[in-house]
């Protein structure tokens, strides 16, 4: 008897039969691709890590060498006393400090060690430059200078010792792990007392009791805490009075604004020029922002970024007239313009008071005028509020004609005027300003009207974008 073959069907869903092979091939191909990709990525990562590591190593060794140089040069300077011997040494000190500072700033330290070392090196370089120009002019160092030099030298010695220990630590531990250093916190490092290769925690710590230095340079410690001349001793105005002032200033700008609203004030006991802040919505959708000082209720700045594209374009002369109308209406009188810049639809013009035939450059006010329509879109009076006062100018020792002696013979003098110029550290110099031309370039040369020293030289950059001094 023939058995009938029974085909056994599975119960439930029918499944098509498929080979595993194509799936395996796809899986293998993908796995190989992923691995290859991963290997390449990893190799790239190592390469970039090594490049970053190398750049940090170079900056680190340069910085340490710079500080070591600084120490040696300062020690040499303390041996010498004649100005012609000191001038070249201080020029080298200035260079060494700048080399150390630039390179330290390229390293991934957190704020405190970076800032402490940066401040020391800024002052060391700045002080060296002040001593360099002083000795170059034949002057000898004062008692105060010698005291400052001694304390800068003392700290250079300590800092150099610490940094050279860091280098030694890096050498014995097989280099610096900059990735790790970038994650170290100063407070933890100082508290742990552990010397971590490459991390300048202990070096920065030596600078903690570094004394304040006073000298004639922009980083001198006397500059912090200077009280603005215009607000000193003035009564505090109320917020409403300040708002009125803000309204009044806005009303002479030519901007179309709506309501002036209060947007805050400087917190109690903070800030060097405490202010009330206001804003006003402009017709085009943007806002104008204006700050008024609490003491004296003076307008400090106005900022806006809105220009009416449909309005007619104004020429420079018209922009200047609008700026000058604005200045006198806002309370800045006898202002004369000097430089200006044409950019991005605005003309920014620099003004300084012109009093008794003398331009007071430190008392700077900048006014920004829209090219479209000519409205005043902004002004900035920090220089004016900080420095403006009635000055007791020194007696001139030189006439303009005798000052000509210091002007290069082949330069053609275009104009001569008298000006007060700022010199870095809130000191000022009374000068003759000679505008001269040479090789189709124009320059401003400032000759001290008392001493005859050439205080500054600017190159005028005159183009279709305006007149700027460099």
């Amino acid at each position, binding site marked *: 008897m023939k058995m009938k073959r029974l085909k056994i069907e599975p119960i439930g869903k029918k499944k098509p039969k498929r080979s595993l092979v194509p799936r395996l091939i796809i899986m293998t191909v993908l796995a190989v691709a992923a691995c290859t990709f991963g290997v390449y990525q990893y190799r790239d990562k190592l390469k970039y890590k090594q490049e970053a590591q190398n750049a940090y190593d170079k900056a680190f060794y340069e910085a340490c060498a710079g500080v070591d140089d600084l120490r040696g040069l300062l020690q040499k300077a303390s041996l010498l006393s004649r100005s012609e011997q000191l001038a070249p040494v201080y020029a080298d000190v200035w260079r060494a400090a700048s080399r150390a500072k630039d390179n330290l700033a390229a390293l991934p330290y957190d704020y405190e060690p970076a800032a402490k070392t940066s401040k020391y090196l800024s002052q060391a370089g700045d002080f060296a430059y002040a001593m360099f120009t002083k000795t170059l002019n034949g002057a000898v160092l004062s008692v105060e200078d010698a005291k400052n030099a001694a304390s800068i030298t003392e700290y250079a010695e300590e800092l150099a010792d610490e940094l050279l220990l860091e280098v030694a630590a890096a050498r014995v531990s097989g280099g610096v792990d900059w990735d790790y250093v970038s994650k170290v916190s100063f407070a933890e490092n100082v508290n742990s007392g552990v010397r971590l290769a490459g991390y300048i925690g202990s070096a920065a710590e030596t600078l903690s009791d570094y004394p304040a230095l006073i000298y004639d340079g922009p980083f001198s410690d006397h500059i912090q805490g200077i009280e603005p001349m215009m607000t000193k001793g003035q009564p505090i105005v109320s917020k409403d009075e300040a708002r009125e002032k803000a309204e009044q200033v806005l009303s002479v700008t030519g901007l179309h604004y709506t309501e002036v609203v209060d947007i805050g004030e400087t917190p109690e006991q903070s800030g060097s020029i405490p202010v009330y802040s206001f804003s006003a919505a402009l017709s085009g959708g943007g806002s104008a922002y204006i700050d008024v000082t609490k003491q004296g209720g003076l307008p400090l700045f106005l900022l806006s970024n809105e220009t009416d594209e449909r309005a007619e374009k104004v020429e420079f002369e018209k922009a200047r007239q609008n700026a000058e109308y604005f200045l006198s209406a806002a309370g800045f009188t006898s202002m004369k313009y000097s430089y200006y810049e044409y950019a991005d*639809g605005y003309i920014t013009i620099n003004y300084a008071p012109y009093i008794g035939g003398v331009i007071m450059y430190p008392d700077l006010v900048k006014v920004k005028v829209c090219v479209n329509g000519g409205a005043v879109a902004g002004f900035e009076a920090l220089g004016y509020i900080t420095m403006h006062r009635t000055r007791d100018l020194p007696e001139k020792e030189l006439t303009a004609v005798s000052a000509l002696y210091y002007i290069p013979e082949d330069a053609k003098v275009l104009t001569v005027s008298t000006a007060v110029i700022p010199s870095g550290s809130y000191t000022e110099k009374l000068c003759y300003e000679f505008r001269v031309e040479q090789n189709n370039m124009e320059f401003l040369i400032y000759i001290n009207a008392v001493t005859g020293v050439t205080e500054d030289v600017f190159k005028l950059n005159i183009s279709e974008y305006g007149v700027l001094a460099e």
Partner: protein
Amino acid sequence: MRKAFFAMFMAMALIIAVQPAKAATYTWGSSGEAVKTIQQTLKSWGYYTGEVDGKYGLLTLEAVKYFQRRNGLTEDGVVGPKTLEGLGMPGYTPWPGTVSATKAPSATTPPATNTNIQASSRENDIWLLACVINGEGRGESYLGQVAIGAVVMNRVKSPLFPDTVYGVIYQPGAFDAVKDGQINLTPTQSCINAARDAMNGWDPVDGALFYWNPKTATSKWVLSLTITKSIENHVFGMSNA
């Protein structure tokens, strides 16, 4: 199983494909061969009447705006990717930047390193400052943008920080936008204007050297700083020491 494959494949494709394209822009203050080409094109189409001198000045600005207005582009005077395309010059690489991989430099399109070099180092500083403002606060108000620029400028003037705009911006760890690469985005016009105002001395934050977001800042050190001003999402301040 298939879904897993697909996801893996897509992930790999994404990793390989995500290489953001940089866009070139030319605007007021730009100069170089690219600007010459722009001027030449605008002149031949009757938008520009000035000289083809490779300097992006007032007349060029007017011509570009006129071109943008007539062609339905955003009338901002900035020759960006769309305007370049409209001018028949797509694929120009930006300054600072590298030569585009997809388009080799030819005689008419010199390598990017020679194009659009700004007129002066001052303009370069303003551009870089605008890039930082853009990376850190393109969503802020104009006041907030100038404030970020002012913090950079205050650092340049401070002995606690490097002495140049470049030194301050590229100091390791100083700005998040430098860390995550957002500094390389093309800045908006508002950021460029804010950078110029900050460079020209506008300081709405009273000498502040730091800013932080009070909602997300947790560091004890940050909370010990003296606040000089609050502007929208940022608080500005300086250290007491």
